């Protein structure tokens, strides 16, 4: 191979469509570095790819590239019966699977007019909030891993393991739950479950101060979070951000409060809100949300009614009438919305999933402009992205 061949070979091999058609930012004057963060990169938590243009270590332009784990969940909804689509919901966002479960069953219930027994609603609240805590715990560990602290993630996992043990009792699985059914849940909670949950609430309350001294008050961590990735109220709303990302910017928008679904209006809990909209605020909001979830679980356990856990009148093959429905629940990452159009058959005519991570990710392009590479990693982590949910 002659040297010239070598260079052409390199040209062919370096980069795909996105890197070769990446428009350099006009301010660059040609002296910049185009770098692929991902699809295999430690800080992208999966197969997200971000093409960044660097001037030194400063980011001039960042462009998320999606689709590496696209599994056609929406199309699958059109070829499966209503019940057959249930296991898909555990796999859209595997970290807060029960929220997706809930959004889907509740949408179908609303469309088909299925009543849910009160006990089932309570069980849903308890399990969903437990799942939310486990999702936030995993985020906590993974975020600190992004910032270079290796130990917290294992402490978080130790606590998360307890939640998974609890949820395993009723759901039988540890990650991709398929627990909610039309008109209730698939299994009743056991006395074991209640005892372990009570114990866990106390345990987690004792554990949170340790998290605080270990990490939240750490000077190095504060240096990596405070005033990093400041997201203004206006910008968060403009991008349609939801969840802790929006609340970190000071907008008290929580689907559980704004449009209370199920029985959330019966519980007394606050919406933690940030002030500046920086990474630290998003961090604080999530830690506070763990506490709020513990409060909700405690109240729900105290007032748990007896009764059916599943509406016995739900037909085996549910066929909602012609029409359309939208139902939103609050997931760990934001508002999960499911839109179903029914033509009266056994399958949905069209199904649309609104993943909160999708809107939250697109903030990144604007938010990371002009920051240092290390800050970009911190921002990306603070958005709490789950890539399978974004690609669906």
């Amino acid at each position, binding site marked *: 191979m002659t040297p010239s061949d070598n260079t052409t070979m390199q040209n062919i091999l370096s980069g795909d469509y996105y890197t070769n058609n990446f428009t350099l930012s006009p301010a660059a004057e040609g002296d910049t570095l185009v770098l692929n963060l991902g699809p295999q990169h430690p800080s992208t938590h999966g197969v997200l790819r971000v093409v960044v243009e660097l001037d030194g270590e400063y980011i001039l332009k960042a462009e998320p590239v999606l689709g590496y784990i696209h599994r056609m969940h929406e199309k699958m909804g059109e070829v499966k019966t209503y*019940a*057959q689509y249930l296991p898909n919901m555990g796999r859209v966002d595997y970290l807060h699977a029960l929220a997706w479960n809930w959004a889907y069953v509740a949408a179908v219930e609303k469309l088909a007019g299925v009543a849910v027994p009160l006990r089932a609603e309570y069980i849903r609240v308890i399990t969903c909030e437990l799942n939310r805590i486990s999702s936030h715990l995993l985020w906590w560990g993974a975020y600190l891993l992004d910032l270079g602290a290796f130990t917290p993630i294992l402490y978080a996992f130790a606590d998360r393991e307890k939640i998974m043990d609890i949820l395993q009792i009723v759901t039988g699985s540890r990650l991709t739950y398929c627990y909610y059914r039309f008109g209730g849940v698939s299994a009743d909670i056991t006395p074991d479950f209640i005892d372990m949950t009570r114990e866990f609430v106390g345990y987690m309350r004792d554990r949170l101060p340790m998290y605080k001294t270990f990490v939240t008050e*750490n*000077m*190095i961590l504060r240096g990596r979070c405070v005033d990093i990735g400041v997201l203004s109220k206006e910008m968060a709303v403009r991008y349609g951000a939801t969840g802790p990302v929006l609340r970190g910017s000071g907008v008290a928008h929580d689907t559980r409060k704004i449009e209370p679904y199920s029985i959330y209006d019966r519980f007394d809990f606050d919406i933690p809100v940030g002030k500046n909209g920086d990474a630290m605020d998003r961090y604080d909001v999530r830690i506070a949300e763990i506490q709020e979830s513990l409060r909700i679980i405690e109240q729900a356990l105290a007032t748990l009614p007896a009764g059916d856990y599943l509406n016995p009148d739900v037909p*085996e093959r549910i066929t909602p009438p012609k029409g359309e429905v939208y139902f939103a629940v609050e997931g760990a990452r934001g508002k999960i919305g499911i839109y179903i159009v029914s033509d009266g058959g056994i399958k949905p005519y069209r199904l649309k999933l609104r993943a909160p991570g999708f809107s939250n990710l697109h903030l990144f392009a604007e938010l990371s402009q002009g920051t240092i590479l290390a800050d970009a990693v911190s921002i990306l982590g603070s958005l709490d992205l789950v890539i399978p949910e974004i690609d669906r």
Partner: protein
Amino acid sequence: MKIMTNYSNAIKGLLGLLKGLKITGVEFFKPQLTIHYPRKEVTNLATYRGHIDLVAKEDAPLEPKCIICGKCAEVCPSACISMEMHVKGEQSFASPAECRTITVGHGIEIPFSGLRLPPAEVIERELDSFNLDYNYCSLCGLCVQICPVGSLTFSKDSYLAGTARKNFEFDLLQRLRERSRRSSQTTTAQEKR
């Protein structure tokens, strides 16, 4: 003044770092949380939910409760379940080719066509095999829930492992019979003692 606050902040920060060191230092001496698998086992296997298994009749441990309605095969999102059956009383045909065997599951797209087997009273039938292709199963539990006679249950087979696809294609009827034979053998062995 500003310098003074700077310095006091720095000292506070350093003290905060020492607190962090104290936490990891204490954790260092705490017992391990790891459960070393081949040596020890986790304690929550009782609530584990593995692949499905057939449940035997109380009076006949070799026969499943299954009435071959096909609802499980129909509801399964991944078409894991299929069964072969013959019409009762017609199994004594001379050649096996003439035997009226119906297969439900993979071949016929029941979930999408909405086809259902006639009720058991109309055509009485017997199970030849109940096939589970565990490779595609997503453990949703819809089949267990829909079974009208409670003939399906979750196994506790948590250490299931294999090296080929074939290892995960089970005939549940055969499994049931082997299981009951084994358990009857052990009970008779115990009685002998």
